Each structure stands twice: as C-alpha cells, then as structure tokens.
C-alpha cells in the first residue's frame, strides 16, 4: 500500500522530468506525442489513486494508512512522512481525476497560437502541478506540506501567464504574489510550532493536541497559518487575486485552480490548524466564521451584479466569485469546530471541486465556440438559447448550475447543509448567537446564489434560437468533451444521492482530529 502512495507521487514527477527530453524531430509530432504522454501518465496516476482507494481499509478511516515514515533531514528533524486517511483520500482521488480529465481535454483543446510555448512544456508543467497537489494531500510533515504547497505555484504561474488570455501576466503575478506572501507568513507559523514543539510531524502534533505549546505560541502560530491558508482558500477579504486569475487562466488552469488548489487551503486548516493549535483555532474561529459569512454574501452579490444585463459580466469571472461564496461555506463549517461542520466542509470541498470543475469546463467550451465569455455579448437581446442550439451543452450547464446552487439530491447540497448545521450548534466555548447570525447570513447567501445561477441559466440556456447570434455554427458536445465531463456529472449525482460514501470516510477521521484521541 505505501508503495502505491509513493508511486502516486513519483510517477507524475518522473513524467514531468521526461518531458525535458525531446519527443520528436518536428514540432507537430512532438506535440501530439506530448499530449498523449500527458494523458497516459495522468491516467496511470488516476489508476494508482483508485487502487489506493480500493486498498484503503474503510473500517478504520481515522487511522493513517499506506504510511511511509523515514528520516530525511535529521538536522532539523524533517521526516519523509506520507500517509492517507479518510480526510485526504477523497481529495487525492479528486486531484488525480481532475488532472486526468484536464489532460484528456487538452489533447484536443489546447490554446495555441503566437507566443504560446510548446505542448511539451505544457505537459511537463501539468505533471509538476499534479505532483505538488497530490503531495500536499499526502504528506504528514509541516515542512513537507509547505514545500508541496509551494511546488504548485510555479507551474500554475506559467499556465496562467503563458497559456492564458487577456491580462494574463498581471493576473499571474498577482496570483503568485498573494500566495507567496501568505505562505511566507504560514511558514513562520510552521517554524514556530516546529521549534517550540520539537517536531514537525503532523500526526504527533495532532495527537498532542496543543500540549507543550503555550497559549501565546498557539495564538501567534494560528494567526500566521490562518493568514497563509486564507489567502489560498480564498477567504474574503483576501480573495481578490482569484477572479483575475480565473478570468485569465486557460480552461484546464481554471479547472485545477478551482477544483484542487483552493482545497489545499481548507485542507490545511483542517489538517494543521484545528488539531495542532486548538487554542489558537478557538481564538480565531469567530473571526473566521464572520469572514466566511461575509464571503458567502459578498460572493453571491458580486455574482448577481455580474449576471445583470448590461453589466459586461464575464462568465469565468462570475464562477470565480461564486467560488468565493462556496468556499465561504467550507470555511464556515471549519470555523464551527464541530464534527458536523468540518465534515460539511470536507464534503463541500469535494462537491465544489466536482461542480466548479464541470462549470469551468462548460464555460471554457462556450468561450471556445463563441470566442468570448462576456455574458452580454453571448446572451444578445433574448438569451444565448443553448437549449435550442446546442441542447446537450445547455442541459449540462443547467445541471451544473443547479448542483452549484445546492439542489437536494446533488453534491452541492450536503456540504452547505452540514456547514450551516455546524454553525447552528457551534463547539463549546464559541459564541452561539454569533454563529447563528453567520448561519442566517449563509442562508441568505444560498438564496442569492440560487438567484444568480438561475439568471445565468436563463440568459445562457434560454432565449430565441432564431435571433442573430455571434456564430452561425454551434457544434454540440463533442466526444472528447463528453469523455472529460461525464465523470464529473456522474460523481456529482452519486455524491448527492449517497453522501454516506464520503461522510463515512471523513467522519471518524474528523472526530479523531478534533478529539485528539
């Protein structure tokens, strides 16, 4: 089992290294080979992740499994400690799945043109990105976690800056500067914990549950870690890098950014902040909850404003803002410090990864077909009429939108419900009235979310098919698109109908982390 986990990390790394070797004499051959190479490697990685999930002992999800724990740098007591439990397993599988789907999608739909680098570099960067994302969820050492957290930055920077569109370089700079500033602060927090507690090992620190760390240390470290992770999550008001990055990023960049990178922040909160510095977490939980509630309302109001007619709203930007709202639910669940809330947060993570991944794929497809993702231009006077002109894409878009607004029976519902449930009855020591207020705000947020998503569906999917449109030919869903989208839609449905699949994995692990036992 632990060999599988190690292979899961080494395979994409080796793949990324292999892309440095020339793949063929002429550019076209090399490009084609690089694309299929990327699909092959990410596919094999997905197979490994599935194997890991099958081999995972589901009766003991609270226990770290597939553990590797060897000395790496004794001088500062950093160990190569890997392992998965019920919290990280779903995220690992989600990451492997989304990366594979992105690679598959890219075989036909890679941004090309003047100044775009070779496909080989794209494949290399995608694989390096995958290494960083998988490692973030698999490592159990604070320093390694930081390293993995940072590894994703450089590939994502180049994906945005070189394969993106619009104001891509400023957006990429903004993305990397925000995250770097945040993670530099986070590293200070990690070092403080490591030097005071004498170990960087997450499982040992979590088992100690704050023993051996003074209250001041815990508060300072929690603040530093919270700041770093809140930038990544992103929590309002540190979210302002996100809309630009999403608008500029290529489709696969957006999918991975929303689907996985944001989860690294919330995963870090659950894995590090809650168990390692519990007193610090309890100190800042009310503030985190408040920011989360504001984020939910702010995100949906921003989306409503963008969805209005004549607002020149960009669809990708709109979904980026909706991510701020959805991650607000996740953060609210975490801030409640209750098993229900944290379970909801973890469920919301996965659900948001599936649904928003699907939405970004769909919007990317619309943008490819129309050449723009500007909502006003798309909709024209009556609406873009996707139902009439490309019924399958229209139906999928509507499906993703209702999933995103949290329709019961689809994945988006459970995370939000549990997060609000957690906020209704927060952990002992937290102010109940405050959290009930946050819950009410979150409830208002769900209504607003439903509002803007239905507006989007109306303006994009409905309308008069006969009205003069930007493009005359509007091909419906293509084979490669269907192949890369169907798994996401199917899993959205499965997770919505059978939430126990995920919750049975995460619940014991969450109780273990929160209880410290």
């Amino acid at each position, binding site marked *: 089992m632990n060999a599988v986990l190690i292979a899961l990390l080494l395979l994409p790394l080796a793949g990324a290294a292999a892309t*440095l070797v020339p793949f063929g004499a002429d550019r076209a051959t090399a490009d084609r080979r690089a694309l299929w190479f990327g699909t092959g490697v990410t596919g094999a990685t997905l197979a490994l992740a599935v194997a890991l999930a099958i081999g995972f002992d589901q009766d003991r999800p609270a226990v770290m499994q597939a553990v590797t724990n060897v000395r*790496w*740098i*004794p*001088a*500062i007591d*950093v160990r190569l400690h890997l392992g998965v439990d019920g919290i990280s397993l779903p995220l690992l599988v989600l990451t492997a799945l989304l990366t594979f789907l992105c690679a598959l999608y890219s075989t036909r739909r890679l941004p090309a043109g003047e*100044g775009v*680098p070779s496909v080989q570099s794209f494949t290399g960067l995608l694989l390096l990105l995958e290494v960083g994302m998988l490692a973030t969820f698999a490592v159990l050492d604070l*320093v390694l976690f930081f*390293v*993995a957290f*940072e*590894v994703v*930055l*450089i590939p994502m*920077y*180049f994906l945005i*800056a*070189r394969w993106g569109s619009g104001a891509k370089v400023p957006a990429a700079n903004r993305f*990397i*500067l925000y995250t*770097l*500033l945040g993670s*530099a*602060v986070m590293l*200070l927090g990690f*070092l*403080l914990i490591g*030097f005071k507690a004498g170990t960087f090992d997450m499982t040992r620190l979590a088992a100690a549950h704050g023993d051996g760390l003074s209250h001041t240390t815990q508060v300072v470290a929690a603040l530093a870690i919270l700041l770093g992770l809140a930038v990544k999550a992103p929590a309002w008001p540190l979210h302002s890098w996100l809309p630009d990055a999403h608008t500029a990023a290529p489709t696969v960049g957006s999918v991975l950014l929303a689907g996985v990178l944001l989860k690294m922040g919330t995963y870090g909160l659950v894995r590090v902040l809650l168990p390692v510095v519990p007193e610090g977490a309890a100190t800042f939980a009310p503030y985190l909850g408040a920011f989360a509630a504001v984020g939910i309302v702010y995100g949906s109001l921003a989306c409503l404003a963008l969805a209005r007619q004549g607002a020149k709203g960009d669809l990708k930007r709109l979904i980026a803002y909706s991510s701020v709202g959805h991650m607000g639910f996740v953060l609210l669940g975490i801030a409640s410090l209750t098993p229900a809330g944290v379970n909801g947060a973890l469920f919301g993570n996965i659900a948001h990864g599936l649904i928003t991944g699907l939405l970004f794929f769909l919007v990317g497809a619309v943008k490819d077909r129309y050449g723009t993702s500007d909502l006003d231009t798309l909709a024209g006077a009556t609406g873009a009429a996707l139902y009439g002109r490309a019924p399958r894409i229209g139906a999928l878009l509507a499906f993703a939108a209702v999933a995103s607004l949290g329709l019961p029976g689809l994945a988006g519902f459970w995370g939000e419900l549990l997060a609000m449930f957690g906020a209704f009855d927060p952990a002992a020591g937290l102010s109940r009235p405050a959290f009930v207020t946050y819950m009410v705000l979150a409830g208002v947020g769900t209504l607003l979310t439903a509002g803007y998503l239905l507006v989007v569906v109306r303006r994009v999917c409905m309308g008069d098919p006969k009205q003069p449109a930007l493009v005359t030919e509007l091909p419906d869903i293509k084979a490669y698109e269907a192949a890369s989208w169907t798994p996401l839609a199917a899993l959205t449905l499965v997770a919505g109908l059978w939430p126990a699949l995920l919750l049975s994995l995460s619940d014991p692990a969450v109780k273990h982390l929160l209880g410290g036992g």
Partner: protein
Amino acid sequence: MNPLAVADPGGLIQSVDWVAVAPPLVAALAALAVLVADLFLPTGRKRVLGWASAVGLLLALLSMLPLVRGDARSTFCLKAAGGACSYTADHFALAFQLLALGGALIAVLLSLHTVDEERLPGGEYWFLLLSSASGAALLPASRDLATLIIALEVASLPAFALVALRRDGRGAEGALKFFLSSVTATAVMLLGVGFVYAATGSIHLAPIAEGLAHVPGQLKPLAEAGAVLTLVGFAFKVAAVPFHFWLPDTYTAAPIPVAGYLSVVGKAAGLAGLALVTTIAFHPYGHTWGLVLAVLAALTMTVGNVAALRQRGDTPFSAVRLLAWSSVGQAGYLLVPLAAAGYQGSPQPLGATVAYALIYGVVNLGAFGVAAVVARTAGTRLDDHRGLFARGRWSALAMAFFLLCLAGLPPGVIGLFGKVVVFRAAVDAKLGWLAVVMAVNVVIALYYYLLWTARLFAPAPAGAEVRAVRTPGPLAAALALTAGGAVVLSVAPQLVLQVVGGSLF
C-alpha cells in the same frame, strides 16, 4: 649577547603537521608552479596552465580527505603553558576550506574560456586566482590574529589584480575602488588588532578571550575600541552595509567568473574571519557584538535586497549588478547566525552560517556561470536573459533552479532549508525581530528572483540578436557541477545540514 642565549634552543624547533596544513599549502604550491611554468611555456601552450590550476585545486581538495575523519588537528603551537596554536584543522576550518577551494575550482572552470577570449594574461590570472584561493583556505584554520590578517591579505590582494586584469577603464576603476576600500579596512583592522594585543598581551584567539575577561580597568576602553575596529575591518570584507559601496562596481568591472569568485570565496573568507574573531576571541563581549552584528545583518539584507529590487532590466551589466546586490542581501542572512551566537554565548548557531554559506556558494557560482554563458551569446543585461529557454533549455533550467534556490522557493528546496536553519538560529537566540526582518527580506528577494525566472521563459523579444555559440566544455562542466550539486543537495539536504547539528570547533 650570545646568540644562543635561549634557554632551550631545541624547544624552538617544532614538528609541523604537514597533513593538517596541506589544503592551503597545496594550493599555494600550485600557484607557484603555475607562475614558474608560465615563464617556460610557449605562447601557444598557455592553455595548459588553466587545466594545471584546476588539477592543483583538485589535489588541494583531495588533501582534505585525511582530515575529515578524527579529531581536530592543530599545529604551530606555543610551547608555553596553555599551548595556543596558530593553525587548527577542525570542522569549521574544513567546511570553509571546502567552500574556498571548491569555489575556486568552479571559478577556474568558468574562466578557462574567458582567459582565452578576453586575452587576459594567462600565467598571471591563474597564479593570482590560486594565491587568493590558498589565502582563503588558510584563513578559516588560522587561530591567531597575525595569521588571520596575513591570510586575509593573501586572499584579497591578488583579487584586486584579478579585477584589474581586464585592461579597460572600468576594470581599473573597479579595482581601484576595491583596493582603496579594502586597504582602508585592513589599516583599521590592524589598528584594532594592535589595541587588542596591547590590552590582552596575546595574539592567539583563545588567550585573547581569557585576557579580555580580566583586562585592567584603565585598558578596558582600549580593548573595546580594538574589538570594534577589528570587527569593522572584517565587515568591509564581507561587504556588510554600510561598508558595501565598493561591491557592485567591482563586480561589474571584473570578468564574470572573478565576480562569482569574489561573491563566494571572498565573502566566505571575510565571514570565516568574522566568525572566528567574534565567537572565540571576543567571546566575553558577546552581547555587544551580538547586537552590532544583528543590526548589521538587518541593514545589510534590507539594503541589498531593496537595491536589487530597483535594478532595471535594460541597463548594461544589470544581470551582474543584480547578482552583486543580491549577494549583499545574502551576506545579511549569513550574518544572522553570527549575531545569534553572540546572544547565546556559544558558537553553536554558527553551523547555520556554515551550512548556508556552502549552499549559497554552490548556487551563486552557478548563477554567475549562466550569466557568463548569456554574456557570451546575448549580453550582460537582464533583458538579454529573456527567452533563454528557447535558445538553450538546459542553461535556462539551471538558471531557474539556481534563482529559486537563492530565493528559497520550492523546487529549490535546499535554499529553503538553508533559510530555515538560519531562521531557527535567530528564533533560538530570541532574536524574533531579526527573524521578522529576514522574512520580509526573503519576500522582497522572492519578487526579483521570480521576475528574473519568468524572464527566462518569456518569449524572446522580436529582432533580438543572438549569436549561436556553443557553450565551451569547461563552462558547461562548471554548470553541470553546480546544478548537479544543487539538485543532489535538494534531494538529500542532510549532506550539508549535518554541520548544523555537529560540533564545529
């Protein structure tokens, strides 16, 4: 007076531990051999001298092998009670000798083609480089102030000439600046050493510490002034702010390999001297110089990084200039554990400086190497690095890796861990404010290193003129060596970080 009036004439003769002194000695002998061989070699065969220097340095490095195992070996000791020694080959000395000789070896590989292409006088160049390296190798092992100063001068005097060897106006100007500031520093330092000697009656480091603890009241100001002046002298050599102003002009004036050599070996020499003098000789004044060094470190890193941030990409020599300022900033990080040692009153934090210096040596020489490659093909501006990936993917990848290591951003893992141990030294010594200043500086530095990295992969500007030249073998070898070293260290950081835990002296 009878010339044999000494009580025990035989006692003046002592056996010398030749194995212990081998590393600097071999380098010095190689220098002399190269100088003599230069007289007899016909003009067409002078290339051999460069390779001979490389072999000489390699031998010097190999001569360190017998010293690695076992206890520290001392030689040139006093017979008197206490038996203070002038030369000690302990782990501290060996680590810095590795840095000095290894750095010089890489500098030789980097300059093999420079000497040919820029028509520098071969014999002199190699002789000067080797002499300087032998001085830098002697310095960390010396344990008395006289040897220290002689070693420091042997390391720096040839360096002035190296900078001036390029016979154009800039070379002379850079060398003159370097020379004047360095000579001033030496004069100040000599004065300080004189004061310390007068106050304590010894020039050996350990007895000075004892003497300082028991200085009679009226000599105390003298001793303190002496200590401060000595520190100022070394601060010049490390180019700590405010004694840094000579550095960027000197680096840009020198041939690029020499600039790389100065940035690593020259700094290492000054740093080793500073560490020895402060932690051993001035041990009783720990809190005072600890504070002074902490302030110097904060100033140095801030000024260096802010100046590096302000470099424009389109001015000539901006690449070397940025590396020069960034090396000022890095010197600031290197000073942090020294300051921590002062606060803690033990040399234990020095391990962080040693580890960081070794890491910095490898990656900084590599960065200068790629700058040399680009200077041959495109130019010395930062903008000339634009699109390097399209022209030469391996040198671009190597440069990206070096820059990320200098920045401390994964995948440049080793740079990150180097900074982590420095941070830990600061935190352990309760220098929280210095750790925060350093964190801010690391973030500033991240920005300009990343900007440079992004330039490497940006599309080449239209109409840029690039000469397609093959990278000469030795240059490529030096890059492979440094890049390979950085990668190996990133995978197995324990190789270098073990000095943090072990005992140095």
